[in-house]
């Protein structure tokens, strides 16, 4: 089975794609068949992924490549390929596992939606695209799936098509990510031009192997940066992060699947995959392109964490936390901790899906309300949701020892602390840790503690089909830490291609204590700040956020997402729109006139020649004719027919002759 799957890797993405097509062709009422088909497709993908995963366990640094020719242009072949290595294998497992939970959850969450069938078709399509992305052995094939993922995201964000805000968000997501994608596209072209191949691994000639890398030379930095543009778009890195919070317009399972666990991970995955290009010519592990990755990551991580503190929408908070965590992963990749970044990506996939699904359960229980200020006291009403959500929150905040997020965060802090270029990113990340604990505490206090407010009066626990995936994911979020601990860094070594061993001493690290303090401080600060939220506290009205009361301007700034959207609207978008208007105006009035003007010159010339014709040549001919006729008439008048007249003329003539001769003589 495992051998067989290595030759048929394409089946893994093909199954969800096929399922998606089948579902699309179902008539609209067949909810049950659609759900069954989608879940079955996902299970099949999970099983296939698992069989693909097995051989990678046996040999460290396993890599199976299967290349084929897509098409031949001229006399050159364009080759694509499938690739299975630890990086791809763990991504496969994570996507299919988290995906399955989300699919199951969706059957409950979306029950009753009139476009249920279409939803599962899109969801399967998305899953297929994502699976294809991670097993691509060609930057072009990766790009193709990358764009398909973007398409799926567009369709799913705008799923509630009758809502104008959803359509706007979908458009924004597509266009914003496309900006990054075009950078990626240019990078891809450049890479293709330099190395002559887009295959990652091709028996030594691939663009990630020495054969290809040697041909890149100094352009590697630019290629890497252009590829990173794509990652910035998909992974919501500053300054292309603006689409991700708006993407919460989609149904919550979509937010969980796309904007937490899988799609946004694609950017991080891309950087990890193309890492040899980023690190080409590294001195001490630092290159210009990696430097950019680090700083973009730092800015994103901090900015998003700050904004998250002032948001009121339960999903938006999670969206900003996702952005922040993605920034963290980028930092990790940039400083050289590829394995650490990927580990965090995987752990994050589990607990962020858990959090989003938990949020979905809360929203479901509160009848569609998403504003945390209107919730509260849900802890007793939704016990399963609460406890699983708390696990997710702990993991996200990075509580050490028991939660997967804690271990991976440790790992990242560890590698960042040892970055030779600067210590600053490390300190910024520490601030980020504190902030993460703070905003998650704020959220959980608002939602689950205190008194019931408007929306939570009639809240109820969600049905089992929704709570089961929550429990499964919560267990994953905890159990996953087994393979992450420094005592048995199995995942780390698996990703880096070495064999893992057990050594309990490594469990005790200096940074562990530091982050314990920081997380604890974050929790404490949060509990202290938001302890009386929702009730009147001295001068503060009940519906005002404590931070808003203390620092209204700062809060306004953060609440409005640092006014980045407004800034873009006033500058880039306004400029583009202006240039569009200008182009149209130029077309209608300038170019058309210019071309017509040249035509006009011709016309003038025509008029001029015509007048010469009319007045000169034509008139000349006319006059000649008229003159001839006149002359003829005149002469014919002399022919009177009177012989005597003729005779007298003769006589006069003779007389004249006589006189002439006389004069001559």
């Amino acid at each position, binding site marked *: 089975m495992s051998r067989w799957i290595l030759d048929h890797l394409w089946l893994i993405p093909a199954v969800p794609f096929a399922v998606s097509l089948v579902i699309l062709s179902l008539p609209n009422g067949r909810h049950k068949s659609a759900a069954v088909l989608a879940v079955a497709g996902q299970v099949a993908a999970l099983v296939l992924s698992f069989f693909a995963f097995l051989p990678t366990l046996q040999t460290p640094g396993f890599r199976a490549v299967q290349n084929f020719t897509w098409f031949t242009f001229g006399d050159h072949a364009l080759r694509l390929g499938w690739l299975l290595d630890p990086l791809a294998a763990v991504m496969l497992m994570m996507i299919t596992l988290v995906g399955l939970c989300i699919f199951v959850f969706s059957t409950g969450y979306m029950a009753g939606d009139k476009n249920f069938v279409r939803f599962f078709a899109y969801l399967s399509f998305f899953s297929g695209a994502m699976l294809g992305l991670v097993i691509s052995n060609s930057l072009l094939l990766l790009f193709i799936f990358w764009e398909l993922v973007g398409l799926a995201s567009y369709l799913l964000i705008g799923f509630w098509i009758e809502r104008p805000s959803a359509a706007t968000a979908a458009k924004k997501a597509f266009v914003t990510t496309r900006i990054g994608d075009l950078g990626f596209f240019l990078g891809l072209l450049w890479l293709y031009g330099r190395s002559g191949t887009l295959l990652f691994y091709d028996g030594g000639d691939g663009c990630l192997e020495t054969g290809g890398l040697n041909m890149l030379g100094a352009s590697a930095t630019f290629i890497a940066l252009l590829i990173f543009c794509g990652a910035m778009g998909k992974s919501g890195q500053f300054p292309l992060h603006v689409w991700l919070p708006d993407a919460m317009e989609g149904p919550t399972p979509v937010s969980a699947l796309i904007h937490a666990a899988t799609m946004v991970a694609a950017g991080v995955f891309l950087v990890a995959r193309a890492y040899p290009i980023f690190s080409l010519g590294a001195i001490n592990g630092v290159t210009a392109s990696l430097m950019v990755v680090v700083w973009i990551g730092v800015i994103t991580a901090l900015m998003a964490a700050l904004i998250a503190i002032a948001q009121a929408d339960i999903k938006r908070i999670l969206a900003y936390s996702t952005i922040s965590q993605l920034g963290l992963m980028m930092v990790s990749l940039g400083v050289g901790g590829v394995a650490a970044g990927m580990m965090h990506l995987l752990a994050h996939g589990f607990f962020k899906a858990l959090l989003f699904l938990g949020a979905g359960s809360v929203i479901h229980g509160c009848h569609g309300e998403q504003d945390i200020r209107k919730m509260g006291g849900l802890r007793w009403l939704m016990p399963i949701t609460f406890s699983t959500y708390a696990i997710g929150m702990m993991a996200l905040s990075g509580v050490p020892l028991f939660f997967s997020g804690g271990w991976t965060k440790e790992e990242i802090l560890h590698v960042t602390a040892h970055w030779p270029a600067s210590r600053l990113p490390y300190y910024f990340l520490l601030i980020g840790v504190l902030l993460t604990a703070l905003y998650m505490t704020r959220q959980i206090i608002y939602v689950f503690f205190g008194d019931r407010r408007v929306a939570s009066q009639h809240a109820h626990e969600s049905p089992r089909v929704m709570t089961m995936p929550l429990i499964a994911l919560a267990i994953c979020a905890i159990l996953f830490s087994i393979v992450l601990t420094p005592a048995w860094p199995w995942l780390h070594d698996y990703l880096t291609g070495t064999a893992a061993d057990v050594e309990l001493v490594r469990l005790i690290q200096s940074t562990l204590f530091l982050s314990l303090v920081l997380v604890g401080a974050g929790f404490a600060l949060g509990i202290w700040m938001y302890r009386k939220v929702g009730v009147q506290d001295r001068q503060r009205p009940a519906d005002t956020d404590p931070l808003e009361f203390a620092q209204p301007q700062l809060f306004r700034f953060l609440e409005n997402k640092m006014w980045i959207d407004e800034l873009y609207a006033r500058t880039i978008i306004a400029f583009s729109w202006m240039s569009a208007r200008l182009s149209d105006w130029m077309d209608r009035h300038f170019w058309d006139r210019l071309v017509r003007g040249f035509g006009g010159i011709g016309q003038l010339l025509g008029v001029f020649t015509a007048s010469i014709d009319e007045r000169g040549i034509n008139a000349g001919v006319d006059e000649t004719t008229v003159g001839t006729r006149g002359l003829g008439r005149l002469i014919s008048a002399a022919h009177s027919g*009177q*012989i*005597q007249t003729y005779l007298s003329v003769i006589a006069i003539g003779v007389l004249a002759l006589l006189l002439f001769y006389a004069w001559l003589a």
Partner: protein
Amino acid sequence: MTPTLQLFLIISAALFSIGLLAALSRRHAIFILIGIEMMLAAANLNFIAFWRFSPQSQPPTGVMIAIFSIAIAAAEAAVGLALVIAVYRHYRTTNVDHLNQLKG
């Protein structure tokens, strides 16, 4: 008064002029014919006069020419009269003002 060439030439010119005048001014075709005959007579007179007053005048030469000329004139007059009669028969007039068929 002795006859001189000059005298003859004057008479001849006068005769010619009278003939011409008649040919030009009369409207009746017969009179025009008579005018033409007079001009021919004037020309004959000239022939005889130049012959008579030439330095070596031989007896028959000048007269011969004159007689020829008169004969031709007679023939011409006959043709002319025949034409006039034909025209008269056709148009019922001999007034040349009405005979403008040669008009171009």
